[in-house]
Each structure stands twice: as structure tokens, then as C-alpha cells.
């Protein structure tokens, strides 16, 4: 498990509540909508917490800016991990 995935699981626990995640194994293939039942407003809070954690360079609004609503709904944890890792590498 990558450290970024660990951190993102921690942020998700903060947004959704650790209790909710206790019975959910989160992997790169976990979908925010289908698997985690993340409401759209919770995804906004997740995006905010992600930026607080990693700084301005991680901006999910930019990531989803070019997507249609179906693509946004289908986003997986792995896609966000990949995006965060790419942003961190670009600014290293």
C-alpha cells in the first residue's frame, strides 16, 4: 500500500467517520460513489481536506474540471492517488 493511499484513507475516515470505514476495505479500485456511497457534498469536503493536507498543488477541482458528471461519479481512490502522486512528483 502506498503512503499516499494510507493518507487518503485517513482523510476519508475524517470525512466519512472511521466507524463507517471499519467494514470497508479500501483499495485503488474502490469507487467513491458505488463502493463508499460518498455523497457529492462529501466529495467536496474530501477535496477540501486533501488540499489542506497536500497544499494548493493538489486541486481536485482542476482534476474533475474536464470530466462529465458520469466520469466524476465513477472516480476511484486509485485515480486520486495517481493524481496526488503526480502532483507531488511534479513539485518535488
Amino acid at each position, binding site marked *: 500500500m502506498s503512503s499516499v493511499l494510507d493518507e487518503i484513507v485517513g482523510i476519508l475516515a475524517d470525512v466519512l467517520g472511521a466507524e463507517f470505514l471499519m467494514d470497508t476495505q479500501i483499495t485503488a479500485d474502490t469507487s467513491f460513489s458505488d463502493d463508499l*456511497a460518498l*455523497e*457529492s*457534498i462529501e*466529495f467536496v469536503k474530501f477535496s*477540501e481536506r486533501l488540499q489542506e493536507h497536500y497544499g494548493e498543488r493538489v486541486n481536485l477541482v482542476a482534476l*474533475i*474540471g474536464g470530466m*462529465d*458528471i458520469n466520469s466524476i461519479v465513477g472516480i476511484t481512490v486509485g485515480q486520486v492517488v495517481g493524481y496526488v502522486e503526480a502532483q507531488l512528483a511534479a513539485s518535488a
Partner: protein
Amino acid sequence: MPDICANGSRFHVQWLGPKAGARVPTVVFVHGLVIDNLSSFYYTLAGPVVSAGARAVLYDLRGHGKSCRPLHGYTAQEGVTDLCALLDALNLTEPVYLVGNSYGGLIATRLAISAPERVAGLVLIEAICAGPRATAWIEDMVNTMTVGALSLEYEGTAGRYRDAGLRKIAKLATTADALLNGTSLIDDLATEQLLDAAELAALGCPVLGIYGAQSELLDGADDLRRHVRDCRVEVLDGMAHTVLRDASQEVRDIVMGWLPLVMTAGDAR
């Protein structure tokens, strides 16, 4: 951004783009009722607005999304008071551009009329503010919400969804139940005071209206054409009331084709 306290309540606010003090235009988004929240704009228009060099300010109306859910204060006029108090709390003293979807458009229009010095431009997406069609729309909403409230309370809708493993819909139902059965929203909506044609005609800022050709609120497009001096109206073929969700790309193109021009003209003034 931390939550903001304004008009005696706590509001969830998302601030995207340049920080306060930077001299760039501000676009404030006002969403619709019950199952809507700021995320409908967050995923559609906020990003393009920021990319165009403006700042985007999104907030959840009282009782909605992640904002506090007080028992009372759900009329459009109270929504205007909330919005003014939020602008003050955020130190947004320059005129802002308001984008309102559905009922949010009624709040935005009311603010543009009652405090024209605070509003530089108005985008109304599927909003109707005056006339018999607006009255009928409010009545329809009251009736639909009343039936929904009864169903949520007595049929245990949220619990049934949860038992069926439909966690996301269960959460939505829980939120709707709390709002419809736990606040004065329906009663407040039933007493809503709508605008008249003369008030619409008093709108002095540029207005963009976007409507679905199949929408029950299409009369709102005619109202704008008839009564508002500086307006542009776009009607999307095959679309109904939910144009922001169902035609988000077209709405984005229309808004981003209009807003920067209006902002430039506003700067020139």
C-alpha cells in the same frame, strides 16, 4: 475555508481562486432546494470561473449540504438576508456576480433588486420569480414536498433504502427527512412572496437566463425578455428543469461565453 457564521447561523462555504483583497471579480453561486447543495456548482461552473481568473464562492443554503439546519428562516427573503450577511462576513464589499439555480435564482434576483449596489451581474438557471407560473411552481413544490415529507416520516424511506444496501440514497433520504420534517421549510415556502413585473423591470444589472425547452418554468424566459432591459436568454432543446445537471457542458459554454464579456464591460464602467 472554515465554516462561516452569518445571520445567526453557520454556513459551509467553499472559496476557490484568488484570496480576499486581490482585485478580481467574484462569482457567488446559489443552489436550489432540498436535495441540492453547493456541489452542483462545484462540479460544473466553479472550475471554469476560476480558470477565467475570477474567484468562485459557493455556499450551502441554511439547512442544506453541510450548513447548519436551524428550525426557521427558509423564505427567499431570509435567504437574501443570509447571503448579504455572508458577503459581509467574507468581506466581499465590491459588487459580485450571482449565479442562481432554480430557487437559488429567486434568492439571487431578490438580492439584485433589493441591493443593486451589491450585484454586478446575474445568471439565472431555470429560475422563475414572477407571475402565475411562478405561483403555480411554488404550489407544486409545496405539494410535492408535503407528500415527500409524509412518506419519509411514516414509511421509513431512509431505513428501507439502508436495509436494501442503497447507502447513498439512504443518506439523501435522511437529509431530506430532516429538512422537510424538522424545519419550517415547507411552511415558509407556502407563504413565499413572489415578485411582480415592475420589480423585475427594476433589475439594472446584466442578466443571463438559461432554460430547458421542455421546462415547466419556460415562462421565466419570456418574463426576462419582456421585462429586463439588459438580458440574454438561452433555451436548450430537449432539456427540462434540470439543465445544470443534464446539460452541464452546454450551460458551462453559455455562461463562460457571457460572463467574461460582462465582467470586462463592468471593469470599463
